[in-house]
């Protein structure tokens, strides 16, 4: 009953005209972010975060969260119609989505992806509603050693999922950690790597780096791949009037796929570092291996589209659990969301739901509403998004540069931060080009200061002994889970014959 009354309270907070308006704007913008190839939710969140500064905190976080999970809906439209994933979490949706469209079933595929996304997202939010308070309860026994180990777990999982380029992932993470050490050391007051600059005393600000790496860096990379030269001739046409809706067979044959995809996606989403891309690829592989007709996968099988779609949406909900209850972001997107929370003076962690019930439950309640809104938007506004796909990238690209630059400046009215953003964009492009992981860098930049503080507190508690990590039961549990993940995740990927390298492409 407590959960129910909390949820009702959350709904009463979320349902105000202005909050609903921002939620709808966020859902719509999220879909646009998802539709644009090369831009994932991390880029969308980073670029649009400064836009929320003039807003009420609850409305701002509701809008940013809607952008985050809305991108999962939008990314599939291009996967189906153009054989191009709008973002990496919808790569698996191209495997059967595009063949379905080529068979003349684009309409049913678009409706089924919207329905699957809705089911995945809603099951994910229901599980958050039930599990977040429990996670919060458990995490209250956590101290600095556990927080340090959780940060290590998040980084290790991400690096394991990077796969073949893991050494470059480690280097990327170390760069992020190094950038995180810039500024005044809060314990001793000593300046580190500030070189006498007053601008650097507070440290290197997260937002310009995130906007540069994910926004500008991805844009440069898209130009490098020639995206700005390509037209929209490859879009599969779909019939809006006839054969648009799925058949009864489509619904019946995928009902258990939706359940399996939602649960698997949510579990993977909760694991720090794994993310929606891995969840969708795993769900696709699992569904194929469980199917009576695995040979049909890849030729336009509806279950092959529904499985990754439910999984990536459930995973995006699952990733909110470690963020809300531990204050540990599991991906680059949730790292940007964490930055948003911090900007609003909110510190997610074990006591967050207890101390900020209106905020936490308002956000959770808004996710129910957001998923409903996205279901409607993604079915009825498809023609609008098809129009968006047709906007040439050579026109869209320079406009993105403008939003990145002015958005960065608007945060602190700092030209230095704007220049840092441009610099990060150029570095981000080369990182992307040469196989480095911008997602690992950003995650390390956020987790680095948290990990350093936790490690130093741990060492102070234990008087310099690392034995503390195996003396405490919660620490031992985290170490056990970390080892299991590091061993099992690559095996699961191999089992699924999927590319783990997809994980780091967007850091979703």
């Amino acid at each position, binding site marked *: 009953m407590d959960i129910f009354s909390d949820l009702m309270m959350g709904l009463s907070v979320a349902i105000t005209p202005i909050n609903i308006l921002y939620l709808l704007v966020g859902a719509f913008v999220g879909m646009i972010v998802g539709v644009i190839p090369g831009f994932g939710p991390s880029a969308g969140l980073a670029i649009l975060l400064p836009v929320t500064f003039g807003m009420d905190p609850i409305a701002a976080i509701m809008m940013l969260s809607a952008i985050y999970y809305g991108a999962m809906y939008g990314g599939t439209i291009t996967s189906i119609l*153009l054989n*191009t994933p709008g973002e990496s979490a919808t790569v698996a949706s191209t495997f059967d989505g595009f063949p379905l469209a080529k068979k003349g079933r684009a309409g049913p595929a678009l409706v089924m992806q919207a329905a699957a996304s809705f089911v995945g997202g809603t099951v994910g939010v229901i599980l958050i509603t039930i599990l977040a308070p429990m996670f919060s309860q458990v995490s209250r026994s956590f101290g600095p050693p556990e927080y340090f180990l959780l940060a290590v777990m998040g980084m290790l999982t991400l690096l394991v999922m990077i796969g073949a380029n893991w050494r470059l992932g480690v280097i990327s993470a170390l760069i992020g950690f*190094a950038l995180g050490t810039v500024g005044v050391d809060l314990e*001793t007051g000593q300046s580190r790597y500030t070189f006498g600059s007053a601008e650097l005393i507070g440290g290197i600000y997260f937002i310009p780096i995130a906007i540069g790496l994910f926004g500008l860096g991805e844009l440069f990379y898209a130009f490098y791949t020639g995206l700005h030269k390509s037209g929209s001739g490859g879009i599969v046409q779909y019939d809006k009037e006839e054969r648009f809706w799925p058949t009864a067979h489509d619904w019946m044959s995928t009902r258990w796929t939706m359940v399996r995809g939602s649960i698997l996606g949510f579990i993977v989403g909760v694991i720090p570092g794994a993310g929606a891309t891995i969840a969708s690829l795993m769900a696709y592989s699992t569904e194929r291996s469980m199917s009576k007709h695995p040979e049909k996968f890849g030729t336009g099988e509806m279950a092959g589209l529904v499985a990754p779609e439910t999984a990536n949406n459930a995973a995006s909900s699952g990733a909110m659990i470690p963020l809300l209850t531990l204050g540990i972001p599991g991906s680059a997107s949730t790292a940007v969301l964490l930055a948003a929370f911090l900007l609003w003076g909110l510190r997610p962690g074990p006591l967050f739901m207890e101390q900020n019930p209106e905020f936490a439950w308002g956000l959770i309640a808004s996710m129910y509403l957001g998923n409903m809104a996205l279901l409607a938007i993604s079915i009825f506004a498809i023609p609008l998004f098809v129009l968006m796909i047709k906007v040439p990238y*050579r026109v869209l690209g320079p*406009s993105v*540069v403008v939003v990145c630059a002015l958005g960065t*400046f608007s945060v602190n009215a700092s*030209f230095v931060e704007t220049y840092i953003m441009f610099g990060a964009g150029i570095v981000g492009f080369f990182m992307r080009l040469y196989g480095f992981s911008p997602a690992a860098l950003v995650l390390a930049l956020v987790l680095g200061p948290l990990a350093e503080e936790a490690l130093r507190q741990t060492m102070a508690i234990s008087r310099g002994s690392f034995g503390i990590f195996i003396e405490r039961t919660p620490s031992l549990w985290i170490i056990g889970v970390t080892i299991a993940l590091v061993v099992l995740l690559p095996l699961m990927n191999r089992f699924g014959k999927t590319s783990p390298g997809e994980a780091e492409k967007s850091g979703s």
Partner: protein
Amino acid sequence: MKLFCGRSARSTDPDHSNVRPAMAAIMAGHPAYRDTKHMRIVFLVVFLAAAIYYTYVAFIDLNFLTRTGRPGPGFFPRSIGILGILFILWTLIVDMRDNDREQTDPARWRDVVLLMALCLSYAVMLRLFGGFIATVIFLAITLMILNRGRLRQNAMVAILIPGGVYLLFDRVLNANMPPALFDLPI
């Protein structure tokens, strides 16, 4: 072999490994193509230099332990710096031993370098002319180069986007727009 092949860049083949072999062989043999592996090595060497400097400062300026024997401000930077140097060296050695040459079309660089240069000019213009004027100039020049022959469309985008962004940031959100150092007489 990683080459660009038209619209395939927009497909699910980000590494363009589906390029036709015959075409790939012809293009790879062309002297205009550069070895991207060498460029990655250059990139790693830059990181190595930065890591060495970072570690040097950590050892020279920052104490490993505090007076009370607790981890000091140099504890984390020294660990990160040493790990960074080791990993970069390891990757450099692996890259140098690897004979797999990855080549790319220099034409792909043209638009990226151009866009980077325009972005850097935009950064300078923001300081000089302020948010609105700099954005109009940036968009007008960039679209004139990238979206040739569509004068009316370019003019509309170059005016409407800065106008919309100005309204959103300055009027609706009351956020900061870059002020001009010099006001243009318009």
